[in-house]
Structure formats: structure tokens, C-alpha cells
């Protein structure tokens, strides 16, 4: 793949009279960790659904890992990984079974699945728990495992939808170290989060408000543009213009 990992150009999505995503344009470079922020209902989820090839846009275009979401959504889905807080793994299957299942779904051969599994489990120190039911793993391990499963087929871009809910500060940081390591190996990461301190971990970020991108740049640039000390303040000013103190 040459060029940026993700390019969105005037991406729009309407549901009847309601415009959920309004001519959104941005680009994410290869190996970048990009924070995709916005309040609930700002259009983040819809935008991501379009980018991963699940929802066709009403207007505009986007290219993800070199494939067009309008003319080749199948191609997009093959090249990306996805992890969501709402659902990632099957609780009543073991670690090994989950890996095998997702591997087969992505068309990997059994030998390749075994090899990748050992590498990825080794990376997070979970090799000893191969045959444990996912239900029995502490939340932090589940999250890391879910990320590894999303990386099973070595995608070029991986989308993480609020991956770090509910865990303690150490576990959260360990997860972000995993994200850094993933990006360092060349995988592009687009992540959404409610924790604005995590936004600072990103190379670049964007904040969506009412379907549009209201701010974009490195954390430092965004803070400087809005003259705020923290991203929290920027977020507050953008989403509730009258409420900032």
C-alpha cells in the first residue's frame, strides 16, 4: 500500500432528513495512532461504520488500506481489523477456540492460525491460558486478547472502538503500550475513546461535533489552536459552546 492508510473525502451519510455525518474529510498516515473523538451522537460510530465497509455513504468517498469503500467494501473488510468494547470475543469459548474461529473466518489456514496465535499470545503473556474460557479471564486480559484477535490476519489498518472501558489505570496503560507496539510494526490504528487523557497518547486526533470535524491535528496543535491547557477543555468548548468556564 502506498500513500495514506485512510483517506476520507467529503464522506456523508444521511438517514432520512437527519445528517449524521456531514462532508467529513481527513487522512491518516501509515503507522499512525489516530484518535477519533466526539460526544455520543456526534456521528463517530456512523463514520466508522462507513470506513470499515459496513455502511455505504450517501455521498463522498473514502479509501482504507488502498481499497475504496464504495466500489470495494469486501476488499476493505479483508484488510482491516476491528475491536469494539460492546462485543469482541465469545465468553463461552476458550482462548484457543476464539482464535481458531476468527482465523477461519478471515481465511487463514490452520497452520498459519497456530503460528500467529503463539506469537500474539506470547506478546501479551497469555500463552499459559490457551485453554481457559474467555469468561474466566480478567477484563484487562480480555481486552488485550481482543486486540490480538483483531490483528490475527495482519491487517493494515485496525479500528478500535472504545477499547479500554472499565479497567484500572495500569491495565489501561498496558493496553496503550500494546497499541504503540502495533503501530510501530506498521499497522495503522484508529481509536475512539471517552478518556480524554488517552487522546494525548495519539499521534494525531480529530474531534467530531454534529457530524463535522471541528478540530484536527496533533494533541499539541489542537490545544494551541483553542488556547486550552488540556484536551478536556477543548472538548468542552467544542461540544457545549455555552458551557465552558
Amino acid at each position: 500500500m502506498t500513500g495514506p492508510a485512510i483517506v476520507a473525502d467529503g464522506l456523508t451519510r444521511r438517514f432520512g432528513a437527519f445528517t449524521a455525518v456531514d462532508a467529513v474529510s481527513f487522512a491518516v498516515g501509515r503507522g499512525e495512532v489516530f484518535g477519533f473523538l466526539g460526544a455520543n451522537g456526534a456521528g463517530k460510530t456512523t463514520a466508522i461504520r462507513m470506513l470499515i465497509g459496513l455502511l455505504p455513504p450517501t455521498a463522498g468517498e473514502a479509501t482504507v488500506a488502498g481499497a475504496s469503500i464504495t466500489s470495494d467494501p469486501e476488499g476493505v473488510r479483508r484488510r482491516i481489523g476491528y475491536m469494539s468494547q460492546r462485543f469482541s470475543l465469545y465468553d463461552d469459548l476458550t482462548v484457543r477456540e476464539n482464535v481458531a474461529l476468527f482465523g477461519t473466518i478471515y481465511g487463514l489456514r490452520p497452520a498459519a492460525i497456530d503460528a500467529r496465535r503463539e506469537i500474539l499470545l506470547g506478546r501479551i503473556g497469555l500463552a499459559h491460558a490457551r485453554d481457559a474460557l474467555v469468561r474466566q479471564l480478567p477484563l484487562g486480559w480480555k481486552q488485550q486478547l481482543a486486540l490480538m484477535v483483531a490483528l490475527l490476519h495482519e491487517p493494515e489498518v485496525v479500528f478500535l472502538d472504545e477499547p479500554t472501558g472499565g479497567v484500572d489505570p495500569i491495565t489501561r496503560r498496558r493496553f496503550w503500550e500494546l497499541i504503540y507496539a502495533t503501530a510501530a510494526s506498521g499497522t495503522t490504528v484508529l481509536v475512539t475513546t471517552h478518556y480524554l487523557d488517552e487522546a494525548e497518547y495519539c499521534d494525531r486526533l480529530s474531534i467530531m461535533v454534529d457530524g463535522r470535524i471541528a478540530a484536527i491535528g496533533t494533541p499539541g496543535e489542537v490545544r494551541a489552536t483553542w488556547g486550552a491547557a488540556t484536551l478536556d477543555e477543548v472538548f468542552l468548548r467544542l461540544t457545549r459552546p455555552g458551557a465552558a468556564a
Partner: protein
Amino acid sequence: MSALAGLVRKETRHLLRDRQTLAILLLLPLVSVLLFGFAVRTDVRAIPVAIVDPSPDAASRALAAQVAQSPQFRLRGVVRSEQALERDFRAGTLRQAIVLPEGTARRLARGDRIVIGVITDAADPNTGRVMGGHVAAMLARWEADQVGPSGVPRVTMLTRMRFNPTLESVNLFVPGLIALVLTIVAAMMTAISITREKERGTMELLLASPLRPATVVLGKVTPYVVLGMANALTVLLAARLVFGMPLRGHPGLLLVAALLYVIASLGLGILISTRAETERTAIMAALAGLLLPTLMLSGFIFPLEALPAPLRAVAQVIPARWFLVIVRGVMVKGATLADLHREVAVLATMAIALLGIGIRRLAIRLP
């Protein structure tokens, strides 16, 4: 292709690891087969029968002996006149009566023709017909014994199908239908309502409030009582107006019975909900544990007399079994409270007991 195999493997694992659902899905067919197998009988056994014999003699005693020995009949007694049997007929404890004429043996010896009356409770038309057939066969044997193999047939059987002379099926189905409808509305909906509260998380809030379990229960079930009674009325009206089903007894007794049955079903619904964690479990428990036995073992379609002894014993604890006797008694036979006081008492006891147990089991804390 291997993705398909992977998906099949996953679904199989989900199924095998959900022990509760698996148990129900494997046991349910087995239980159904057993129940259906034993309960679906059109032949009847141990029919409670009485003999009306104004002048007992050798011939009539021979008939009594034959009846007493036959496994198809259960001889309740030999009486002098029909009047004595009226109450038992209405209460359903007597299903047939054989009425002999005066001086049976004498007349047979003289070569006269005699007429033997057979009164059959045909509130359930199917069993009515079958019982009629059994008595006819029995009488034929007796006649052959009395007059010898070469004798001319001298016994004429005069059959009277009581309570349902035209053998209307609707008389059989409607009472059971009322019971079924009430079971669904009262038991299943109550169970679902409480488990839904648990799933939503609002149960936790109710528990942490000053509300006592009895209040919660009464508050939750009252709308279903009203709904259940409305449904019962609807079914009854339809049966009367559309299908012409009789209502020979007092409607008040009927409604009281319906109310008691509703309360008993509600109690069962609450009991189910105290064990079920999810709506899905509640529905399955209500279907398998309540609806199915009510359908099969209450005398709804298949007569109780046809059940083997162990199943008949189980049937005694099913509220519908008692409710149906009352409904049929009141509607088809014109029975009164005096006739049915035993059944009403049992139903009332069940209603109070089940509701009480349900309330006690509704914990005041989280498990």
C-alpha cells in the same frame, strides 16, 4: 468452506455449553413422548359405575360380580333407585349407572324381554361413547351367561347420554380452553414480568426500597388477575353465543372458581420467576413445567381415568385438574356448590398455598 465449518463448530460449542437450555431441549421431547404415550388413550379403565337394582336376585348379583371383577369398571355400589346417584353424577365421581328392572332373574327365566337402562355421563363425549361400548359388551356377556348359548337375545339396552345428549365436543374443549388461557395469562406473564424486572436492573431498586415482598407481588399480579378474568369471560361468551354451550349451573360459582384458578396460576408464575434469572428461562419453565402438564394431565382432552396410576397421582397436584371438574360440573351438569365443595376447597387451598409460598420465596435481598 472452512469458514462455514468454523461457524458450525462455534454454534455447537455454544449449544453444548449452555447446560440449562440443553437440559430442557433434551428432556422436553422425552417427557412429551412419555406423557403423550401414556395420556393419549381413548380406551378407559376403572370407570366408576353403580348398579340400580330394585330387587336383587341371583341374576343381578351375577351382573354385579361381573362388573366388580372387570378392570374396565370400578363398582361404586348397588342402590335401589336412581335418585341416590344424582349428586355423584353431578360431582363427576360416578360416570355410569346400570339400571336393572324389577325381578330380573324371574323375567329371564320366564323368557320375557327385559330392558336395561344405561346412563352415561357424556360431558366428555369421547369417553361417553367408549364407556357405552364397554357396558354393551359386558351386558352381552352377562346375557349369554344367563340365557345360555342357544338363547334368543332378550336384553335390550336403553342408553341415555346424560348432560350432553347430542355429544357436543365443544362441551369437552371449552372448559379446558379456559384453563389454558388463564394459565398463559396468569402464570407465564407473571413469571415474565418479574424476570424482566430483574434483567432490566429495576428489581434492584425495588428491593432497596421500603416495599415489602407482599406489596410487590400484589402490585405486579393485580393487572393480570383482571386480564385473566376478562379472558375467561370472553371465552365463555364465545362458547355460549357462538357454539351454544350450556350454562346449567350458577355463573357465580364459575367465576369464583376462575378467580381461584387465576390466583393459583399466579402463585406458580411467581415461583417460576424466583428461580429464573432471565425472561427466556422463565418462558421455557412456564411452557415445559406448567403448560404441558396442564394440557396433558388435567383431563383437558385425555381422561384422567385413562392415565396410569403414577401419572394420575401427579395430576392431583395440578390445579387445572380440579378447576376443570368444577367448570364442567357447573356448565354441563348444572352442579352446585354442595356437589362440588370438595373440588372448590382443594382449589382454594392450592391458590392460597401457592401464592403464599411465592411471596415467601421472593427474597428481600439479592441472591
